[in-house]
């Protein structure tokens, strides 16, 4: 497969006077899978539709395979797109849906038949050729949409929240299937979602968007472990947020005086002295009654609330100064489970803290 890269250079789009996308710069390497992640209205879908050619940018340039594509209509872009709710043609059979792109490309009938059959095998839909979409389950429709988008061997594959309509189990299963298929085919893929788990599961790289702009782009672990803003850390997963004031650089890193008066040193962080900052700490980094307290930042507290989720348990702990901290414990590791009202010691590594400007 000759995968092509996609590049956006200062792309912007307004709806009337409302800016939907405000100067997006993004490079997607050939064969890479990138997620556009953000809340509804952040411009992710508009960005995807501009790559598809369904919307025309008001400013900036879209390049596919290194050449400007702004003026190329969608039907000449050689893309494959999987829509929200799949957009399967309701009056055509499964085989006709999948073969549609090949018919439009005027391929010989015999070739269409073989390629449709191959595509159906690839997504495990054999035997359903003559069904119509309304006779299929959600997962099967999803597979038809995927096969229809892939059978034309597009340069770029685009997904617009395609899994939103599926229940959780099926969604997780489809995420893995899509990822495996994407790797196997090696196609450049851009995936729009508002679901952080989906972005983490599927992507080589996650692009977080807010109000029409990219706020951070990076590998899933970069985005999760080293978020650069409250928005990103809050959007991806759960967090402990500790507000304070930067008081200068110390031996252990940036010194931050918390609202309660305690001073913490955050390694590899920087902020102007006197500025309001926020320290972010993921709940799973917080150990409860750590056996080895040496080298950890410690806090004493009392268990105020317990959320048992089967595989893990979340403890809400009220610490000195009245703040509540969230700690995640994996169950089945032989750790004694604290009970409501127990006094506990929380401990975490200084390096697990991330510091950025307070929102």
């Amino acid at each position, binding site marked *: 497969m000759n995968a092509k890269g996609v590049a956006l250079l200062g792309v912007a789009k307004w709806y009337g006077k409302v800016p939907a996308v405000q100067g997006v710069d993004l490079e997607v390497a050939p064969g890479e899978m990138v997620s556009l992640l953000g809340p509804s209205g952040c411009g992710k879908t508009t960005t995807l539709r501009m790559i*598809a*050619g*369904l919307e025309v940018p008001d400013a900036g340039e879209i390049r596919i395979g290194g050449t400007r594509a702004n003026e190329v*209509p*969608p*039907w*000449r*872009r*050689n*893309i*494959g*797109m999987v*829509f*929200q*709710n799949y*957009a*399967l*043609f*309701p*009056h055509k059979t499964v085989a006709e849906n999948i073969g*549609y*792109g090949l018919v*439009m*490309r005027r391929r010989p009938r015999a070739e269409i038949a073989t390629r449709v059959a191959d595509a159906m095998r690839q997504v495990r839909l054999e035997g359903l050729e003559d069904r119509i979409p309304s006779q299929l389950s959600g997962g099967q429709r999803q597979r038809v949409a995927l096969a*229809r*988008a892939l059978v*034309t061997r597009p340069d770029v594959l*685009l997904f617009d929240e395609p899994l939103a309509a599926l229940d959780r189990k099926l969604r997780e299963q489809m995420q893995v299937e899509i990822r495996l298929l994407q790797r196997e085919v090696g196609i450049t893929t851009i995936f729009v979602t508002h679901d952080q788990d989906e972005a983490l599961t599927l992507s080589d790289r996650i692009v977080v968007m807010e109000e029409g702009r990219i706020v951070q782009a990076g590998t899933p672990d970069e985005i999760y472990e080293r978020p650069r803003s409250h928005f990103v850390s809050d959007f991806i997963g759960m967090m402990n947020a500790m507000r304070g004031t930067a008081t200068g650089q110390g031996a252990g890193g940036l010194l931050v005086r918390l609202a309660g008066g305690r001073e913490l040193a955050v390694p590899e962080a920087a902020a102007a002295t006197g500025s309001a900052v926020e320290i972010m700490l993921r709940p799973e980094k917080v150990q409860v009654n750590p056996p080895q307290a040496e080298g950890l930042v410690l806090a004493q507290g009392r268990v105020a609330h317990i959320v048992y989720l089967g595989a893990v348990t979340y403890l809400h702990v009220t610490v000195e100064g009245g703040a509540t901290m969230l700690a995640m414990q994996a169950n089945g590791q032989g750790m004694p489970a604290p009970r409501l009202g127990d006094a506990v010691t929380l401990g975490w590594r200084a390096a697990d803290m991330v510091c950025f400007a307070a929102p």
Partner: protein
Amino acid sequence: MTARRLLGAYVAVVMLFLALPIAVVIPSAFGEGNALAFPPQGFSLKWFAAILERPALLAAAANSAAIAAVATGVSLVVGTLSAFALRRYAFPGRGALMALFMAPLVFPAIVLAAAIAMVLAPMGLVRNFWGLVLAHIVVVLPYVVRTVSATLAEVDRAWEEAALTLGASPWRGFTSVTLPLLRPGLVAGATFSLIISFDEFTISLFLVGSGMMTLPIEMYNYAEYSLDPVLAAVSTLLILLTTAAVLAVERTVGLGKQFS
């Protein structure tokens, strides 16, 4: 229980009232007597055969059929395009335009008739086939716009966009995806249009003349000097034709949906 029975009786009376003309006309067509009479005397098909000996009626029927066909054809194209513009695009004056398209539905036919005659007369389009076609287009267009735009509301934009991303030009996307999905609306619109045009009286009355008659007006003229069962025979054929058309539409696309 009594309330229910009362309602049942009421419905029966209304149905009877609505069906009465049909119940009278159809048997009258099969009578042997020379005058239009109910109940008919004897049984015969001679009045159906007699239609063939009334060239004025035959010519008028041919005119009406041709007018209905052309007016329907034009309305399908114009109506579909209009429905598209009205449904798919937001533009200033859209509401006003939609009201304009629907106006012939609520306008008193006689006012419309006078207005159309006043416009067409100076153009020499009275007692003219194309004048009648134009007038009928005005009358039937709202029905086509209505049925097509009702169906278009069910056609998801995403289907058309999916076609575009799969390599279909807008025109090929329209013919391969949108048009087949619009078929129920088009069939229903065409059926209404044909029936309404064929049956149109008030407006046609202002536009017909010697040499260019439509069937309803020719039947009216005929009734003025002879009230024989030929009219009943013609009416019977019209009832059969209309019923068959409506049943066919109901079978293929479901007429009920067009009124929901």
